[in-house]
């Protein structure tokens, strides 16, 4: 009898999470929970100013405080060749400032003391003399000729430009525009947003001089990348470095890069020969670590008057802060921005991107998105909304006309991506029905008569998740594959390790479900471990929704290798040839006699006790998976809002999300991911952003100014599902963790703009705070985020 897959916690089971057992008891193990014997504590002194030359640093008073063990400055780092470190985008970043500070919050000195209170006291006792320099807070100031050069440390860096990049067919695109009936334009700013996981970054570096081994417990979404980078920076051999990521209190991309604090704690441990713990405070996290977006986007669409999209072009000007530290595949300077419009059938497209240094925090991380896909899709759906209005077409019908049809896959986008599957029209239909689209126009008209402003916003998109394939995707030259290692014990229980890194996605639960699906070993019998580079196989970590597409595939593949070996053992046990063996979930049997069979557990025992002659004992293996393509989930989101015309306050009446992420390993976990993503979309649309004043002071340096929505403001969500299996993934799954954050914001903005559409409002930049909405509805004008945007041509 084959097993019931749902009962053993296989594919499709909403299995309750294994990791919850510790978290609900307060027994999680986050970095700050770890205590090592003799451990010291480190605090970082940060620059209060955005751009200044350091004239002097006097640390003598810090040493006067009892309990202070070491004070590190840039000069001391430089003496060990550690003042600068490489970024993930082939730039360099200061670890501790030597010459200048280049953004507010930059690391200037570090104190290592017996406890963090004393370390903080000592930070306050350090005297730094700064000579102020002109401050550049946006790319438009950065590009002005004669503006202060921020990166005067670099050779061949005459101005503040980081890169100039283009992709697509310019000639074909120009031709499409020349032949267009209607050209529709859009210009907007996607503001700077910080991923802001609840847990900040931190590390405990523990260098053991006797063994020469360095162990670092740290908040990293990609421990193996960190090991490679530390090997490079600290000039230690890899086998003498062990990086351990314990439980992470959220990541969202923020914990991909390598931050100065980690490196300083490592040197501090080497110098003090004691473990050194560094736990960043929230302000430090918000003002110095990886942010998302901060891009000015401008573009236009060439349209035929019946609504057919003929071409699109787009320009981006991005603000990278003081160091180009974007976490992204090397080949692409502005991430996967060119995945924009991938769900639409458009013959010609062209993208130009320019990036600039500014006196702001570095980063450019994929904040819950696949490498700048968030701004690509936000621009797309804002542009589509405007284009439909320009054509006088219904929002849903305009999309339906131009979405790639089911029978067009595989579909090559104008930028060269290959989308491979989906049922876009079906998703649209489900969402329209759920939101009540048919009766909405009449409802909106009627409400307007009563002075109420109703709006519906639609956002549809497919995005590339699961980098990568090794032909195109690498970080610092390391190809973006992933891995899994499975060891089946003689009892038939198993331990699985992968190169991914859970930070709330539930890998401990869901990876075991893939094993259950492939081998029929109950999920409860499979332990999952990640995050320790001494034990986990090499992998690129978890971000950009790549775990299921890449590491998840590796899990399936390694389980299949195990099954192949178990089949040989089964043949041996059943005394038939391998060709006469059939498999059903959890069991091999003789084709001619289904009653005669052995379970996977029988095979496991035999692998250690009764293997065939000549067979290598044991039942374990590993798999490195290099995906043939990205996965392409589809999302159709609908948001209905009501705007208060006297205050600009808008309320969300309903949110409908239709997601097609292929086969769902654990539907409960998938839905949890979607709701989390929708909330971050709502957050960015309504309140969450970071801005800077003219002096480069960060507005949004703590939770009083950087607003995250609470349970009270956050709307409820209605979720729907369509399943189009991924054709190349071993179990048909696609990435999903980020779809809602990517496609969500445009649905909210489109809804508010729709409510105000009759007043002539075309765009309100996020966040749509009540004052911005009020200004738009009283003036009928577009509201642009700071600064005044001139994109040039």
């Amino acid at each position, binding site marked *: 009898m084959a097993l019931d897959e749902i009962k053993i916690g296989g594919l499709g089971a909403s299995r309750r999470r294994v990791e919850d057992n510790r978290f609900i008891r307060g027994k999680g193990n986050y970095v700050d929970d770890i205590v090592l014997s003799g451990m010291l504590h480190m605090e970082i002194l940060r620059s209060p100013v955005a751009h200044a030359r350091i004239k002097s640093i006097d640390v003598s008073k810090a040493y006067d405080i009892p309990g202070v063990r070491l004070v590190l400055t840039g000069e001391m780092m430089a003496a060990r060749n550690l003042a600068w470190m490489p970024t993930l985008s082939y730039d360099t970043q200061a670890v501790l400032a030597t010459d200048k500070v280049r953004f507010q919050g930059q690391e200037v000195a570090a104190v290592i003391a017996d406890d963090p209170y004393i370390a903080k006291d000592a930070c306050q006792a350090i005297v730094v003399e700064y000579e102020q320099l002109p401050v550049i807070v946006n790319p438009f100031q950065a590009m002005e000729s004669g503006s202060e050069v921020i990166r005067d440390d670099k050779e061949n860096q005459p101005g503040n430009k980081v890169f100039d990049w283009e992709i697509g067919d310019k000639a074909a695109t120009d031709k499409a525009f020349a032949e267009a009936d209607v050209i529709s334009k859009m210009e907007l700013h996607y503001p700077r947003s910080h991923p802001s996981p609840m847990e900040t970054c931190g590390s405990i570096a523990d260098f053991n001089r006797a063994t020469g081994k360095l162990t670092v417990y740290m908040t990293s979404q990609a421990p193996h990348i960190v090991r490679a980078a530390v090997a490079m920076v600290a000039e230690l051999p890899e086998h003498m470095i062990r990086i351990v990521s314990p439980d992470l209190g959220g990541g969202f991309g923020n914990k991909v890069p390598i931050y100065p604090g980690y490196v300083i704690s490592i040197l501090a441990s080497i110098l003090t020969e004691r473990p050194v713990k560094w736990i960043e405070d929230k302000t430090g996290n918000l003002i110095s670590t990886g942010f998302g977006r901060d891009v000015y986007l401008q573009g236009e669409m060439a349209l035929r008057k019946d609504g057919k999209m003929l071409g699109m072009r787009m320009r981006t000007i991005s603000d990278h802060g003081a160091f180009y530290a974007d976490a992204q595949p090397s080949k692409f300077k502005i991430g996967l921005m060119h995945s924009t419009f991938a769900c639409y059938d458009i013959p010609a497209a062209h993208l130009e991107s320019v990036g600039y240094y500014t006196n702001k925090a570095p980063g450019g991380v994929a904040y819950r998105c696949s490498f700048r896909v968030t701004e690509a899709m936000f621009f797309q759906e804002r542009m589509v909304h405007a284009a439909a209005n320009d054509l006088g077409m219904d929002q849903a019908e305009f999309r339906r006309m131009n979405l790639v049809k089911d029978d067009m896959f595989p579909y090559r986008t104008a930028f060269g991506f290959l989308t491979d599957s989906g049922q876009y029209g079906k998703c649209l239909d489900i969402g329209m029905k759920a939101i009540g689209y048919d009766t909405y126009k009449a409802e909106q008209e009627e409400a307007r008569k009563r002075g109420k402003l109703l709006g519906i916003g639609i956002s549809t998109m497919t995005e590339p998740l699961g980098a990568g394939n090794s032909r195109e995707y690498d970080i610092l030259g390391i190809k973006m594959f992933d891995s899994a290692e499975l060891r089946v014990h003689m009892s038939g229980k198993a331990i699985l390790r992968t190169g991914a890194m859970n930070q709330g996605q539930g890998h401990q639960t869901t990876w075991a479900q893939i094993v259950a699906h492939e081998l029929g070993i109950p999920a409860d019998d499979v332990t999952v471990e990640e995050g320790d580079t001494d034990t986990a196989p090499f992998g690129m970590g978890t971000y950009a929704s790549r775990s299921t597409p890449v590491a998840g595939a590796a899990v399936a593949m390694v389980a299949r290798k195990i099954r192949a070996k178990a089949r040989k053992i089964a043949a041996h046990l059943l005394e038939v040839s391998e060709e006469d063996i059939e498999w059903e979930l959890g069991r091999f049997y003789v084709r001619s006699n289904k009653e005669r069979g052995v379970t996977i557990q029988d095979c496991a025992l035999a692998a250690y006790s009764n293997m065939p002659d000549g067979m290598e004992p044991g039942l374990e293996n590993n798999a490195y998976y290099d995906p043939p393509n990205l996965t392409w989930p589809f999302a159709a989101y609908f948001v209905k809002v009501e705007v208060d015309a006297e205050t600009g306050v808008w309320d969300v009446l309903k949110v409908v999300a239709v997601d097609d992420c292929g086969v769902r390993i654990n539907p409960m976990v998938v839905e949890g991911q979607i709701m989390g993503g929708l909330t971050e979309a709502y957050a960015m649309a309504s309140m969450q952003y970071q801005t800077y004043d003219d002096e480069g002071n960060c507005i949004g340096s703590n939770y009083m100014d950087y607003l995250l929505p609470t*349970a009270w403001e956050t709307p409820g*969500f209605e979720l729907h599902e369509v399943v189009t299996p991924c054709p190349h993934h071993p179990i048909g799954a696609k990435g999903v963790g980020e779809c809602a954050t990517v496609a969500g914001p445009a649905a909210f903005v489109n809804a508010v703009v729709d409510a105000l559409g009759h007043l002539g409002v075309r765009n309100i930049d996020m966040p749509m705070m009540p004052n911005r909405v009020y200004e738009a509805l009283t003036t009928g004008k577009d509201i642009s985020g700071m600064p005044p945007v001139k994109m040039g041509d």
Partner: protein
Amino acid sequence: MTSLYDEVQAAPGEGVPTRRVTIKVNGEDRTVDVEPRLLLAHLLRQGLKLTGTHTGCDTTNCGACTILFEGRPIKSCTMLAVQADGHSIETVEGLASASELHPIQEGFKEEHGLHCGFCTPGMMLAAKALLDKNDNPTEDEVRWALSGNLCRCTGYQNIVKSVLWAAEKMRAESK
């Protein structure tokens, strides 16, 4: 120089003013010498090794450090350890008995009310404070009661469902 939070066995550091406090933590009296400036959250985490209470911000916004102080929820990062002297507090570690989870804990697991788990202890204690006063809250009442606690992962909907699940179970058990 470990005067900030060590238990009384350790000698306090020289010249550092400390006070001896006794706090009933999850039903057990704990006596500690603390510096006045030590935050209660830090005493719990570092001194008493109860690391289930988390600190997620510097500004009394996130609620990850929420505990029950004399039965009412407080942010333990915004109370000095000395202020808890003579008082009774409950942390996440006190929710379950050795053999049995509290219905709120069960609810969070059943309804997938957590992802990364960092906000969870604070959320559960805020929820307990609500359910201790109101055993049959509406969805809006739950959302309101949890609005001093931030979560970045879940989008709150499942947290609300978790609390409603627990309320139902607690009502059934009390019948």
